[in-house]
Structure formats: C-alpha cells, structure tokens
C-alpha cells in the first residue's frame, strides 16, 4: 500500500477549499461557498471511507495484526542529519478510525451549517475557516512525525481561535477566543519541551523510530533516557509528562479546562465539530499515538490516569449546576474525555491488558457521534429560542419533534443505557478500570450516575418542564417561531443521520479493529457487571425526571440544601477567578509592569544619564575653548610651569 498518494487528497481538498474561499469567497462565491465546502468535504469523506474499508477489510492486516503503513513521507525541515520534521501520512487503526470520524462529523456540521448560518454576512469566511480546521485536524491525525503533529496541533488551535472569535464584534467572543488560544498555547509549551526532551534522547522525531528506540529494552537510547534523572524523574518520564501537558491543554483536562466552556461563544455547529467531536480528543489521540512508550512508564501513565479521572468527576459535578445549555454540554465533553484519558491510564500494552486502550478509542468513536448530535440539537434549539439559557426553554418537544427524538437518543447514549452507543464503550472503560484500579472504578461509576442526571436535567428542562413553548412566551414571538419551525431540512438531515449513528455505533466491532497492538481483542458484555452502572444511570434519569419534568421549586430547595458546595460548583470552583488573579496581578501587574518600569527608568535611564552626563561635561569644558588668546596663553604658561615642576622634583 506504499505510495498511496491519494490519501493526501483527504486533507488537501479542505485546504484547497480554504484557499479558494479565503481569497475569493467573500467577493465572488458568497452564495455558493457553503455548497463548495460541503461538496469538497463529501469527496474527502468518501475517500476516507474507502481508505478505511481497504485498510480494515482488505489489506491492512498481516498475520492477524494490523500494520502501521506509511502512505507517503517527505522531509520538510532537516535539523541535523538524523533529526528532521517530515510531512507524511500514517495509516494504522487509530488514524484510519479518526479519518472517518473527522471527515464524517465535519461533513454533518457542514451540511447543518448550510441552514444554521444562512444569511450570515461572512458566510464564505465561515466555510473557509471550517475547511482550514478540517484540513489541520486531518493533518494532525495522519502525522508520521511528532513535530508534524505539533504543527497541525497549533493549526487546529488557530482555526479554533478564528472560529470561536467568528462573531468578532462581540467582546465576549474575542475574549473567549483569546483565552482558548492562550491557555492551550501555555499547555503546548509543555508539549514543545516534551518533544525537545524526547527528540534529544531518541535522536529522532519520527514516530516509528521514536517508539522503537524508546521501547526496546536493549536500546541504548532507552537506557540513557531512563537513567538520566532530574528532580527524581527520568528524562523519559519528564518527556512524556510534558507531552501529556499539551494533550491535557487541547483536551480540556484539569487544570487547563477553563477555556472550553468559554469557547462556546463560537457558532454552535463549530462547538459540535471542534469542541465536542474532534479537536478536543486530540490529546487522547496523542497519548494513544505514543501509547507504546507511555505503557513503559508507570509514573507518566499514572499522571494520565489521575488527571483523567479527576477531570471526569469535576466536570460532571460542575455540569449539574450550569444553566447555559452549551456550557452543560461543554462540561459533559470534558467529563467524557476524562473517561477516555483514564481509560488509557489504566491500560497496558498488548493483548487482554490492552482493554483500556481499546475502550478509550471505542468511547472516542461513539462519543463523537452522540456529542456532536447533542450540540447540533442544542444548535437547533438555540436557533429557535435565540437564547442559550435553560430558563428560556421548556416544552419544546411538540414544536421540534425531530430534534426532540434525536436529542433523547443522544442523552440515552451518553447516559449509558443499552443498547445505545455509549453503553458499550462505557462498559468497556468501567471493566478496564475495575480490573486495574478500584478507586478509579468507583469514581467512574459515580460519574456515570451523575452524567445520566445532568443530561436528563438538560433534556427535561428543554423539552418538558413548561407545558408548551408557545404558551410560555408572548404570542407574537411564538408565532414567528412556529413558522421558523425546526429549521431547514439541511439542519434536520444531519440530526437524523447522527441519531442513527448514536444507536448503531456501539455495535461497531472496534475490539477486533482498533487495539493497542493491532491484534483483535475478544470482548464480551458481562450482564452481571453491567447491572450497577445501568441501575445508577436509570436512577440518575429518574431523579432528573422528578426534579425537572415539570416546573417546581424542588431544584431550588436542593440547591439551597447543598449550600456552599452548590455555589462553589456553580461558580466552577473559582478556577476562572484564580487564573484571572494570576494573569492580572502576577503576570501583568508584577512581572510586566516591573519589566516595563526597569526598561524605562533603569536601562534607558542609564542611557539618558550617559547622554546627559556627556552634555554636562561638555558644558563644563566648553569654556576652555573660548577662542580668547589671552586665556590660551595662560593655559600655556601654567602648563609649562607644571611640567617644569614635575620634571625638576619628580623625574629628576
């Protein structure tokens, strides 16, 4: 399969669309830019699916093990004889799976946006940015080289920045886009240093060589990297932990998660694509890509596990208290990514022990469908209600039946109710955690109950609660909305397709396709094991139903009875305030102001002093050059006498 250059078309088509729409979209192609973007992505999607078919079913397997295939690779920037940034495409189970997920979800979002973004002044720009994002994400997925992944990593970051700040006239959108970029950039600093450490120790940037050199116990590189110690951790551990920091930033793991809820300022389809299904799982993908090395390093793997589990729990707790529909979904995303992370953390490499790895990838796969569905559904609701706040919604189920049903499917899927997609992947994660670490298992189980609760809190508040949306708001407005309806068919079709995926994705045989070592894994659903999580989920749903199905004061009472804890969770545990304090007071006011002050007063002050001093001296001595002959004669005589005295008394 070597030399399959057609793979390059998958990312290059969106790139071409970006260039075309970016340069000419606004002036010449404004009305058809959506169609252009969607069609070119459709071709990409078809190529991706063909590639996946070929890889998984035709020629990816050798002796029952899926191979890593380099479709193409060329040197882009040579640092030194062995170390270079290459650009290429790798085909292995995770990259092929991601290709399909990214192109498919992106296609759904492209189609949905045809209706959702209709009439926007900068329609072409929107599609240009979407294409840029899709290109970058595909490049990231296909990376053969750790520096290549870093480059595309930055590019998805900037596409995310541009799309969050799409409504650039809103100060909140600008602030959110800045925050997202800067927080992830800070995390990327860790990634960069991690790359430098790994590259220095393995003398390569190529993934294949890197993994080979740092996993082979006899390799001098590995021995060197594990013996070098700095603050009690080996160079290898430092490298891996630093790389994980980058992953934690993009994947909104604690403590870098603060950008994700704010990122919801972007258009809702963008949230569905970038901040739910694709970019935010890049961190998981990165750890999975380097998993053979991580599995060698217990410390690094523990960091991944604890950060993942803590983020999952923290986000779920916060999600229960948020009132902005998109923010609830954002925290839910963070929580689910936490699942994927700790699932990698509890896994080891190869065979039965690689269950966690498989489960993580499985959850990534199913989550992409039901979470993008949730966001697109939320988008349809916001499109109708013109508000993100849950209090402005309620009783929408009759007004928007398709949205209602698909949203319900997605909620059941994320809650882990069989036979919806989320059930299967979450079961595998719980099983992997159960066999590895009981504490993590307990956290995961509790969180899955919480998940069911907050998702159905959302569901009941939007679609039930008030008797009917038409009665709730004033007549004229609701009339306009009724005409508006659920939106165009381009908005409904993606919902239906994704709804079907949210039901069926769980039956996809990921276990035999995507595993840590490429060999198929035997899995089975243990009915006894499933009882606890499913019961917990049902309990969560029933509780939410009790509290939110009709309007009542029970939620408020509950909130009051929880007291300070509720307030703290509602305020997101004051993380934003802490960050604000650090940036504003320490970075800006202390460091920044000091640097500026020193520069102005001390460094430049010295230069000015020097200039002033010179001027002063010249002022003092300019009298000597008066041009008066008598004065010069006196100097002359004084000098002569002085030299004479000197000559007579000292030299002689």
């Amino acid at each position, binding site marked *: 399969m070597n030399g399959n250059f057609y793979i390059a078309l998958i990312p290059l088509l969106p790139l071409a669309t970006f260039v075309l729409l970016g340069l000419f979209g606004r002036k010449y192609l404004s009305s058809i830019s959506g169609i252009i973007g969607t069609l070119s992505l459709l071709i990409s999607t078809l190529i991706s699916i063909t590639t996946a078919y070929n890889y998984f079913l035709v020629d990816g397997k050798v002796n029952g093990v899926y191979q890593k295939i380099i479709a193409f690779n060329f040197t882009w920037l040579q640092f030194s004889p062995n170390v270079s940034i290459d650009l290429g495409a790798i085909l292995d189970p995770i990259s092929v799976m991601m290709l399909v997920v990214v192109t498919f979800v992106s296609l759904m979002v492209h189609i949905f946006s045809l209706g959702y973004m209709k009439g926007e002044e900068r329609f072409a720009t929107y599609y240009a940015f979407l294409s840029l994002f899709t290109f970058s994400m595909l490049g990231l997925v296909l990376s053969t080289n750790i520096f290549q992944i870093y480059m595309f990593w930055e590019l998805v970051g*900037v596409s995310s*920045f541009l799309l969050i700040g799409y409504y650039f006239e809103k100060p909140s959108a600008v602030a959110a886009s800045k925050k997202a970029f800067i927080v992830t*950039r800070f995390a990327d600093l860790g990634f960069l240093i991690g790359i430098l450490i790994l590259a220095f120790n393995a003398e390569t940037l190529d993934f294949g060589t890197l993994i080979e050199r740092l996993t082979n116990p006899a390799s001098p590189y590995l021995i060197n990297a594990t013996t070098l110690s700095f603050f009690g951790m080996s160079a290898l551990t430092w490298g891996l932990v630093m790389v994980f920091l980058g992953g934690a930033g993009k994947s909104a793991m604690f403590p870098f998660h603060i950008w994700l809820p704010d990122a919801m300022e972007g258009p809702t389809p963008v949230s569905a694509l970038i901040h739910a299904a694709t970019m935010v799982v890049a961190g998981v993908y990165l750890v999975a890509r380097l998993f053979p090395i991580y599995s060698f390093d217990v410390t690094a793997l523990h960091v991944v596990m604890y950060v993942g589990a803590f983020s999952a729990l923290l986000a779920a707790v916060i999600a229960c208290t948020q009132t902005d529909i998109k923010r609830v979904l954002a925290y839910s995303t963070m929580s689910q990514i936490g699942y994927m992370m700790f699932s990698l953390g509890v896994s080891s490499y190869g065979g039965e022990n690689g269950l966690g790895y498989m489960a993580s990838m499985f959850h990534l796969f199913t989550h992409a469908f039901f979470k993008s569905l949730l966001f697109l559904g939320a988008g349809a609701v916001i499109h109708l209600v013109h508000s993100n706040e849950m209090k402005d919604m309620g009783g929408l189920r009759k007004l928007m039946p398709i949205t209602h049903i698909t949203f319900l499917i997605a909620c059941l899927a994320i809650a882990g109710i069989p036979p919806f997609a989320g059930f299967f992947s979450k079961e595998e994660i719980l099983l992997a955690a159960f066999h590895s670490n009981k504490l993590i298992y307990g956290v995961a189980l509790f969180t899955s109950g919480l998940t069911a609760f907050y998702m159905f809190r959302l569901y009941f508040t939007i679609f039930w609660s008030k008797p009917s949306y038409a009665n709730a708001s004033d007549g004229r407005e609701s009339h306009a909305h009724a005409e508006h309806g659920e939106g165009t068919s381009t908005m409904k079709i993606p919902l239906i397709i994704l709804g079907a995926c949210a039901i069926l994705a769980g039956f996809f045989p990921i276990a035999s396709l995507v595993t840590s070592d490429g060999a198929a894994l035997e899995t089975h659903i243990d009915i006894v094991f499933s009882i606890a999580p499913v019961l917990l989920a049902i309990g969560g749903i029933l509780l939410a139903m009790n509290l939110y199905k009709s309007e009542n004061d029970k939620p408020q009472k509950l909130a009051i009875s929880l007291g300070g804890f509720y307030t703290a969770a509602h305020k997101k545990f004051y993380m934003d305030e802490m960050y604000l304090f650090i940036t504003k007071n320490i970075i800006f006011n202390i460091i920044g102001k000091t*640097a500026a002050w020193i520069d102005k007063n001390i460094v430049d002050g010295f230069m000015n002093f020097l200039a002033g001093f010179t001027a002063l001296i010249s002022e003092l001595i300019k009298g000597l050059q008066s041009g008066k002959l008598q004065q010069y004669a006196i100097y002359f005589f004084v000098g002569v006498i002085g030299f004479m005295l000197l000559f007579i008394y000292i030299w002689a």
Partner: protein
Amino acid sequence: MTNLTILILFPLITAIAVLFCRNSAQIRWTALAGSAIQLILASLLMHSYYAERAAGNVSQMLFESRTSWYSALNIEYYIGVDGISVIMIMMTAFVVLSGILISWKIESLTKEFFFLLLLLSVGAYGFFISLDLFTMFFFLEVAVIPKFLLIAIWGSGKKEYSAMKLALMLMGGSALVLVGLLVTYFKTDIGNGVHTFDLIKISHQHIPLETQKLIFPFLFVGFGVFTALFPFHTWVPDGHSSAPTAASMFLAGISMKLGGYGCLRVATYLMPEGAQYYSSVIVLLATIAIIYGAFATLMQKDLKYINAYSSVSHCGFILLGIGMLTKTAIIGAVLQMVSHGVMTALFFGAIGMIYDRTHTREVEKLGGLLKTIPFVASVYIIAGLCSLGLPGFSGFVSEMTIFMGAWQRPDAFHRIATILACASIVVTAVYILRAAGKAVMGPITNSQYNELTDATWTEKSASVLLTFAVLSIGLAPFWLIDLITPDTQLIMENLARGVLGN
C-alpha cells in the same frame, strides 16, 4: 547576475535619478521601478547562485571580485556572496520594494524621502556583499545616517529625541566595531608583516587567544547594538515609534539584521575562541532580551511600541541562536534574521496603514477595524500570527530550529535559557492577541471608523509581497536550509578549530 557591484550601483543610480525627477509622481514611479528591478536582480542572483552550486562549485564565496581601494593600508573593495548573504540580499530587496510601495502617499519633501530610503538600501546591499572588513564598515555607516534624517524629518512624536538617540547609540556601536576591526587588522599578517582586512584571509589566520578575548566583546557588542542586544536596545522602541512607516520597516527589517549578520560573519566567524569564551554571556543577555522584551511588551499601549519591544524579543532569538554555537542553532539564527526581516516589515506596514487612516496607534482607542477595513485588519492579524510563531509562517520555522539547536547543549544553564526562550512564545501569544483583540476585533469604538477606506493598490501590493515572502519560508523551508547549511558548516569548522572547543 554575476557582477555583484550592480546590486549597489543600481539603487544608487535610482536614488540619483530620483533627485532629477520633476514631480512626486515621477519620483514615486522611479523609486518603484528601481526597487522592483532590484528585486528581479536579487532573484537572478539567487538563481545564478543555485546554478553555480548545482554545477559543483564548492568555493566558499561565489562571484568574487576585488579592486584595491587604498593600497597603503591594504583596503580593498572586495565582494562576494555565500548562501547567507544571498538570502539576506533577497530579504532586503523584498523589504525595500514594499517600503517604497507603502510610502506612496508621502507628500512632504517626497524627493528627499525616497532618496534617503534608497540610499539606506545601498548601505544594506553593500554591507551584505562586502568581504573586506573596512568596506563592510563603510557600508554600515552609509546605512546609519539616512535613518537619522528619516526619523528627524518625517517622524512623529518626540522625533528629535528619538532620532538623536538612535543615531548616537548606533554610532556608539559602530565605534566599538571600528576599534575591534582595527585591532584585528593589526594582528593579521599575510607575509612580510603586511596586514589585511580580507575576511576570508583573516579566517584562516590564527588570531592569538588573548586578542580574541579582548576584541570579541567590542565586535559583538558593537554589532549587537544594531540588533537590540540587551541592555543596548533602548533605541529600538523610541526609534521605531517615531519613525515614518517605511523607515520603521527598513529599520526593523533590514538595519537590525546588519547587526546580527555582523555578529555572525565578523565576530563569531573570525573570533571562534572568543565566541566560545563569551558564549555564556551572549546566551544570558539574549535570554534576558527575549523574555524581558516579551514581558515589557505586555504593558505597551501603542501598536508601534508593542511591535518594537516584540522586535527586541525576537531579535534576542538571533543572538541566542548564535550564542548556542551549535550548527542547528546558527542555521536557526540565520533563518530568524530573514524571517523577522520580512515579518516585522509586514507588521509595521500594517500598523502604518492603520495609523494613516485612524490617526491613532493607541490600542485602547482602536476597535472593530476588521469590520470597516478588513484588508488592513487581516494583514495585521496575519503579521501577528506570524509573530507568535504559527506553523506555515516563517517565524515557526526559525524559532523551532533555534530551539532544536539550543536543546543540544545539555547542561543546566543552557537548558534553562532554552526553556525561558520557549516560554516567551506564550507571552508573545498573549500580547499579540491582546493587541489584535482590542485594536482590530471587538466592536467599533469610533463612529468615524465607519468612513474609512480599505487599502489602496500600493498598500495591497506591499502586503501581498511580504506575505508571500513570509509564507514561502514558512511553507517550504527546505530550500532555505539547503542554501545556508554549507556556509554554516564552514562557521562550525572554524569554531571547532578553536582550542576551547576541544
């Protein structure tokens, strides 16, 4: 294009032709035609250079020629180019042409303005082709004087102060360089006690270790002043903020690179042991410049001050790359010179376009320009993204090369310096996005901004030209690397010969 003298003669002829023009339209078109042809000449030079190398010419310098200038002191007009100088010439040609385009609307003393711009470019071209230290020094001085006049006459704000400060500090730098060059000269001996200014010959001589230790600081600091070496960088913010747009572009794009080029070509190449002896000091000062410049930028409120301080930080990377003394880092330093040259010119160009329209550079007063003048605002954002090192633009390539090279020094001191330098890219993101978020994004702050007109054709051409340069490095760095790697190899060999290296 093998006669290098054309590169300085042609802009000189253009400058003189400008003096004979009768109206401002003639002046502009003459200057534009001259600098456009100069860009073509530079491209031809690069093409011939590639062809010559491809044909297997391995001599250190190509297209050499020498004429005795002042034989009593053995001063020669000796010129020639290697890959590094070719790429610097190319960069200069890009910046000059776009500087001319962006100054299209200069109305007062048009003739003198364009004359000085072109004269400045003569100095830069001459500097980059010189292989005789005295000739090189001569062109360095040619490049300084026009700056003083450009700022003092066409500048804004406290222009007299800034012009004076810039001229005095750069002259101070030149004085140090001159002392260094003279001592070097008297330490050379090419037989029969004859001294030489010939750069190539000196590089084969062994200058005594003690002399190197004594002289290296003179040369390095002297050139370093030009490239904003901490703590001699204070002319940069004032100079840039007072300068007219094109002068800022020339100043940051070209002049600051004369210093970096001198630090590499003269100080480090000729004094390998001196460079090794002082390398920690260079790394220390460069790291301070990088991180301290970045933090000082955070507090600036004027778009030009932001970019000027940011230039201090970015030029720190050039010195850091040189100070690390590894091949990769030095390649990175050269890349950073070229990259920063075109990128910062684009940045100052964008700021100039904004200022011409809104008559303010205060970040707080601006806002919503992306809505009213989308082209200009987009140029600002593109320059900003390049400045914060986004992949695809030139800054990423050069900074990453420097980081990779710097990481090859495994001791704690160099590690910490490298990590601090890496950390500066986060601070860069903060100040760039802060400025862009307030000034060009956000709501429209002033109803008059609705009346603004977007870029003219000259401004658009200038922006496209520089964006093209930034992208051609950022998307395809391999051609640049091929160009400069052999020359860096020679510098490294000279360094390895030094006794301290072993």
